[in-house]
């Protein structure tokens, strides 16, 4: 059931992609902040990957010390504003709020966090400054959340920082890969600009690092290098017909949508393959772009989906239909996609089995593959002695240092794909790791 009409203007696009976590107003923030119990050894802090002192910043909001609240937030998490909006708070801080045990709605921590930092960013309050120069230089590959966090932390420690970014904008997936109803480009970019203005790190855009020679020159010129490259393109499914027109990877689809908004053409019938959060996003986005029918197809049962329950609910509420226990065996069509041929699957003795005797076709004009992204294995292979695991994730020690001592890494490159908040934590800690290593 289509809930959304095809957006023809930017205004219609914004309406279809209404912010899931809108900015709080002063009154809402005041009343919400007043509810915080100020728990001892608060569970929300423990549930936050960056250990923000949440009860403290909430009390600061309540006492109208917004700048102080922002300082508390940024002190732990350089992407405090973006994380306030895009973090899956229901499974992190808000999920840990003790109010949940009383069947009372938890404090809206994410939105309060966004409220404080947004105000401080808009007021251009200077709350940080770069540390006194220590003469050392750090190169960062990738201006995503991990890279930005690493840059900020390194600047406070007195390092010169240059970030090398393949794309035209900073923030990585926060700008290019997160569903538009979760955060706007404007919101993401202004936070980076705010941090950059205060801390003064350089970002060299459209400067991908992907040759041995480029790496060599970084190694010569810098004292340490941080790899914050994230993941690569959508992996191939290796099924028949995958090369047909209008078969697109979810990451590529979202990126195009984030850049083109209403100008992106989405056809009438869309099939989304996958059961993770990216699949939910892609399906929801196709539906909000006015697809008449959007079908989410996952090879296992609903319970086995990797996506958070709330992400699935969000897709369903956007009018997405779902198919479970089906696996694509071919993409049909003559040049362009015309349908996906599925086979039914079932759990047999704890293993998922495909029943090739039970197949059917779902007609569609577009297939979005949300079945995982490839890793940046090529880049990693160019770095001497860089150890990676069997899933092509860079191995690091607890200081985020790789097996090649001058390289540090964090974010999706080491965890295989997680939240913005995890990347922000890794980047910050990696900068401290670099600092400790260089000052040994």
């Amino acid at each position, binding site marked *: 059931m289509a809930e959304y009409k095809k957006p023809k203007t930017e205004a219609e696009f914004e309406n279809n992609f209404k912010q899931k976590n809108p900015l709080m107003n002063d009154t809402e923030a*005041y*009343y919400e902040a*007043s*509810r915080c*119990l*100020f*728990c*001892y*050894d608060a*569970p929300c802090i423990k549930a936050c990957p960056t250990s923000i002192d949440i009860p403290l910043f909430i009390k600061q909001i*309540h006492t109208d010390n917004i700048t102080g609240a922002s300082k508390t937030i940024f002190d732990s998490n350089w992407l405090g504003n973006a994380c306030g909006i895009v973090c899956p708070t229901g499974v992190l801080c808000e999920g840990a709020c*003790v*109010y949940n*045990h*009383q069947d009372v709605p938890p404090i809206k921590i994410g939105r309060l966090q966004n409220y404080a930092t947004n105000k401080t960013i808009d007021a251009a309050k200077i709350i940080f400054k770069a540390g006194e120069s220590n003469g050392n230089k750090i190169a960062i590959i990738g201006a995503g959340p991990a890279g930005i966090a690493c840059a900020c932390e390194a600047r406070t420690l007195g390092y010169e920082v240059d970030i090398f970014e393949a794309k035209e904008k900073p923030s990585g997936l926060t700008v290019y890969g997160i569903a538009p109803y979760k955060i706007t480009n404007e919101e993401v970019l202004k936070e980076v600009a705010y941090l950059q203005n205060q801390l003064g790190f350089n970002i060299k855009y459209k400067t991908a690092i992907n040759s041995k020679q480029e790496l060599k020159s970084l190694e010569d010129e810098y004292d340490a290098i941080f790899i914050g490259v994230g993941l690569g393109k959508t992996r191939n499914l290796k099924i028949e017909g995958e090369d047909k027109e209008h078969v697109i990877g979810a990451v590529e689809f979202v990126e195009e949508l984030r850049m083109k908004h209403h100008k992106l053409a989405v056809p009438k019938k869309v099939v989304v393959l996958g059961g993770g959060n990216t699949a939910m996003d892609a399906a929801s986005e196709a539906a909000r772009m006015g697809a008449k029918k959007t079908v989410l197809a996952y090879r296992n049962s609903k319970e086995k989906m990797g996506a958070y329950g709330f992400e699935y609910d969000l897709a369903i509420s956007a009018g997405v239909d779902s198919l479970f226990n089906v696996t694509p065996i071919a993409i049909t069509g003559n040049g362009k996609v015309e349908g996906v041929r599925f086979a039914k699957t079932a759990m047999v003795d704890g293993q998922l089995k495909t029943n090739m005797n039970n197949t059917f076709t779902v007609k569609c004009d577009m297939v979005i593959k949300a079945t995982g992204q490839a890793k940046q294995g090529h880049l990693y292979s160019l770095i001497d002695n860089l150890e990676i695991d069997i899933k092509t994730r860079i191995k690091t020690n607890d200081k985020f240092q790789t097996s090649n001592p001058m390289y540090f890494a964090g974010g999706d490159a080491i965890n295989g794909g997680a939240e913005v908040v995890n990347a922000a934590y890794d980047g910050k800690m990696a900068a401290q790791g670099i600092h400790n290593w260089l000052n040994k």
Partner: protein
Amino acid sequence: MIDLSVNFGGIKAPNPFWLASAPPTNSGYQIMKAFEAGWGGAVWKTLGVPVVNVSSRYGSVNYRNTKMMGFSNIELITDRTLADNLREMEEVKKHFPDHAVIASLMVESRAEWEQIIKDVENAGADGIELNFGCPHGMCERGMGSAVGQEPEVLKTIVGWVKEAANIPVITKLTPNISDIVPPGLAALQGGTDSISLINTIKSIVGIDLDTYAPYPIVDGKGTNGGYCGPAVKPIAMNMLKDLAQHPEIGKIPLSGIGGIETWRDVVEFILLGATSVQVCTAVMHYGFGIVREMEAGLRQFMEEKNYNTIYDFAGKALPNVTEWKHLNLEHKVVAEINADKCVGCELCYISCDDGAHQAISLSDDPLNRIPSIIEENCVGCNLCSLVCPVEDCITMVKKDDGTEHNTWNERSLNDNIPTTFNDDRAGGKGHFVPQPTDALKK
């Protein structure tokens, strides 16, 4: 059959819910509207030589999400002419002959008192309330709290009024004194028929952090205001108790004022000896309609307790309010945490450890956030149960068998109290206290 009507020292009203002399009783319009809404009486905004007021006039203390937990005003007595007020008073009495209309008065000379008393009696007032309480502006001119703070002056003026008046007289007292009994006694000796208390408390409710001026700000400056609202209720109830327990003052009717907003407040004031209550801030916050909640709650309470009139339970708490020295030192309660209800905020732990007696411990298992009471350390102070955000999660459980009774007074008489600095009879002797350096291990 519940009958809420009162006869308060000769002033009759259909119920004990009265409006205090304040902005809500500034005009006949407001008072008629209030009577329509269910109020049984109203003390007219203080009459006298009209004043000139400032702008703005009110300030408040907000606490967490509660606005106007405390309220302050720097408004003076009526700024309307006496003639206008009297004309409206007459009209109100015409429409509401059975409701109590009481004229609050504040003037200086004996001649003025005699004149204004005659005027309000002619207008049909059912009683007079003497404003000896206003703590701002009027006191600078020798009236209001300047009178209430000088028992001799107070007694003299009450005497003048009683001599001139044919209707009952209420004396309203100021709390801006160290002991409420002397002014109460002076009012009694002056011949007052009843007493009302408290008037507002001298206060500064806040300072603007940009202009450094106190609220409410009048062109960059401010002055002390009169504090009222829910925040002052405990102070008012204590003063009410002092008068109600007094062997002589306790015999005349007392009207309770100070932070009354709900039926519970009303019942508590009555239990401490009030037989009418006066309300201002709650009306200024919510309007006259709040009386519905008060009346419904009071009726419900009376029905459940089988009371027919408020006189059936007025003063019932007074025998239980005693001096500290008469409290039973052998009584022992300890806190008990209901693990099923506990949400794991650990406020009880930290409040006890930092603010009380180190009698609550945390589990060694980081996944178990339910604290435990260390019974031998618990002094039964109650703090944990007060900070606990969950209803009935922490309760205080009686541990003594009720057979022993010993008070400070009794121990003093038996010469069994600590008398020297290192006396072994110190109450905390043997009670667990962590070593000072244990603090550094946390």
